[in-house]
């Protein structure tokens, strides 16, 4: 019998293998720490969970839920890397691709993009659904930062980073349904009229190519970038065990 204070000894079972967790951790937090990959886009270890992209969907205790918001439960069987859930993930990725305008070959983020890397990881070979081709003008008003709304996947990491880390509240979410979009907080609605700075956390947190630094195009050649050399899953395995 384990002593109740021995918290490191409690664990749940992820795809047949034990994952230890601390009291109050989510399935995602514990899995990431243990170097176990659960696909995700809107989750980031430094920020409060959001649960909107739904890529991290798992089956826990007979129900499906987002690993980033489900509290880990001792002894619970959690399924993640199954054919059914990976098929769902692939469809969710295809939805995100057709919803925006994602042209990887011409995107500066290609190779460093979590959306692209996760799509490769899930074996996505095409959009499957008809493209929506929305009309979304870019905001190039800021001297140092570009926003290309065409690539925004509404993960709200920039919203959270700007509010929680930078203390600036530069972003918010507007509209609803398929018209949901990222808003910039200024009288003109343009980034130039905010106090956003290039070294803000919000300027670097974007997992896709929606918020990019200006004048830094293709500094690292395609083919040598983060996910070109190692898959997103392998990187998650390597990250595990680090503090």
């Amino acid at each position, binding site marked *: 019998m384990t002593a109740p204070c021995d918290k490191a000894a409690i664990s749940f079972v992820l795809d047949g293998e034990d994952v230890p967790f601390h009291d109050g951790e989510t399935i995602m937090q514990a899995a990431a720490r243990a170097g176990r990959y659960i696909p995700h886009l809107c989750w980031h270890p430094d920020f409060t969970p959001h649960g909107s992209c739904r890529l991290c969907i798992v089956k826990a205790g007979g129900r499906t839920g987002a690993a980033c918001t489900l509290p880990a439960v001792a002894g619970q069987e959690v399924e993640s890397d199954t054919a059914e859930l990976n098929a769902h993930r692939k469809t969710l990725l295809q939805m995100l691709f057709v919803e925006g305008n994602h042209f990887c070959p011409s995107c500066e983020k290609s190779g460093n993009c979590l959306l692209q890397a996760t799509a490769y990881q899930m074996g996505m070979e095409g959009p499957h659904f008809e493209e929506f081709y929305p009309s979304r003008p870019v905001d190039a008003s800021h001297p140092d930062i570009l926003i290309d709304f065409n690539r925004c996947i509404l993960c709200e990491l920039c919203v959270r980073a700007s509010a929680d880390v930078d203390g600036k509240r530069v972003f918010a979410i507007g509209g*609803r349904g398929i018209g*949901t979009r990222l808003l910039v907080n200024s009288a003109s609605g343009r980034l130039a009229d905010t106090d956003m700075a290039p070294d803000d956390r919000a300027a670097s947190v974007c997992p896709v190519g929606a918020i990019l630094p200006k004048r830094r195009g293709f500094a690292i050649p395609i083919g040598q970038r983060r996910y070109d050399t190692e898959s997103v899953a392998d990187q998650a395995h390597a990250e595990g065990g680090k503090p």
Partner: protein
Amino acid sequence: MDIERETLSAVLGRHGRDPHALVQILREVQEQTGWLPRDLLGRVAGELELTLAHVEGVAGFYRFFHTRPVGRYRVLFSNNITDRLLGSVGLMADLCRRLGVAPGQVGGDGLVSVARTSCTGLCDQGPALLVNHRHVITRLDAQRVEQMAELIRTQVPVPLWPAAWFQVDDNIRRADVLLGAPLQPGIAVAAALARGPQATLDELKASNLRGRGGAGFATGLKWELCRNAPGATRVVVCNADEGEPGTFKDRVLLTRHADEVFEGMTVAALVVGARQGLVYLRGEYRYLLEPLQAVLRRRRDQRLIGNAIGGRPGFDFDIAIHAGAGAYVCGEESALIESLEGKRGTPRIRPPFPVERGYLGQPTTVNNVETYVAASHIAVRGGAWWAGIGTPRSTGTKIHSVSGDCARPGIYEYPFGTRIVSILEDCGTRDTQAVQVGGPSGTCLSAFEFGRRIAFEDVPTAGAFMVFDRSRDMFEVARNFAHFFAHESCGFCTPCRVGTELVMRRMDKLAHETGGGRGSRHDIEVLFELDKLMHSTTHCGLGASACNSLRDTIAKFRPAYERHLQSLHFEPGFDLDAELSVARSMTGRRDPGAHLEPEAP
């Protein structure tokens, strides 16, 4: 501009410049200004110490808030399938034609705008519409539309329009224990006070009352969890955001049985230990706001709310009404709480549940209008009495909103366990093809299932009962529901935001009216696949149930779909030859393979 400034400072003052009142502030300002220009949003943001983007985000979330100019007369046709069956589509086209305005546009130099809105909860007396978000017009017909066009053109103020148009009937066709025996104001509160909080809770638990909003969670248990949750203060919330298309029983309860609703809330307050009560009234029922506030004033005078209720020192509880602004998702209890807090109505991550951390972090019990009415009766007559009605797992009665193809649409109260066929007989139906029970997110039943019973263990329902006879195209019913969910998705999670849009586009592709009937079996397979995905991956129940009617109708009324299929294989959503014909003409092709349309004379 000065008028705007005065309006704004009066509204802000009324709400103590509380940023959590943002939705109410925007609604009350817009009632004066007509719409919400961006500089006005900026002033609201400045006064409340919120960012402009935040205020803009909230304003842009609710359909009844206008961030672009609208007509001085804003006409919104209810777009529920029952309104459409009664001819709303043609009536709206007629009104637009008479006023020379396109749907969704502003016409006549800012005079009028005409658009559609989700179900207005007047299905038993449709087709219905809303004018300027505070007047409802029922029983539309060609004559009313003709007169209305004239009244708008001559700019007659809406309150001076024919009074008969605004008449909303209760249409109570079958009353049982709740509708048949109204309680004297105060009697339930007195009974609960005499019994004490714990014993009252015990009666609730003994009654096995389950929530009437659809999910069917045990009410006694919910109250107990709220009562036992850590926290200094607690809140009782009434969910009167009756947004499920085809449901209108809460409208009738709020019209005729408001005392029992407030009484049930007061009993809940005694049990859980709450001092604050909130009613979330859907924006479509804005016209009920003043009558409900009058009931609250009277109850305050009668010391049935306020301080020392029923003469009991320390039992202080008051109720305020928050009007919504057109968002179905706010019927989900955590989205409702977000909206009460003045934010976008996005469902929260759960846990924590509202009973642990709800309105402004306080333990909060959110219950349906009908649940509070039932609770007030249980407080008077006891749990055993209620448990003796209905079935063991679904106790008591249920109030149904019956509409569609029947002779006597209206409100019907039955004990749980009643068969579908009995309701069909009572409301006067013939040649019935299908019944949609519980609204678009509920269950679609075909004729061979009419022997089934209304009960949580058989056919559960939140109260809608829409009847379709054999002349109706069930594909069009499902397509209307697909439009509804795409219209109402909050946009937070990927599968619902994109999935409801994909489903709607597929259904439109299949429809002759909009897609040229270019459907194939492949499209039906994609619909199946989307249903499966959304059912298991969405953030909240709205997305999870958005394809229920699709799944049911494909399974039970497949010929209705197959009539729309052009081939059994893939068909693109466009005509390839037509798209290429311009290019082929330009390159001088004239061969038969070019499929050129004969040139116009």
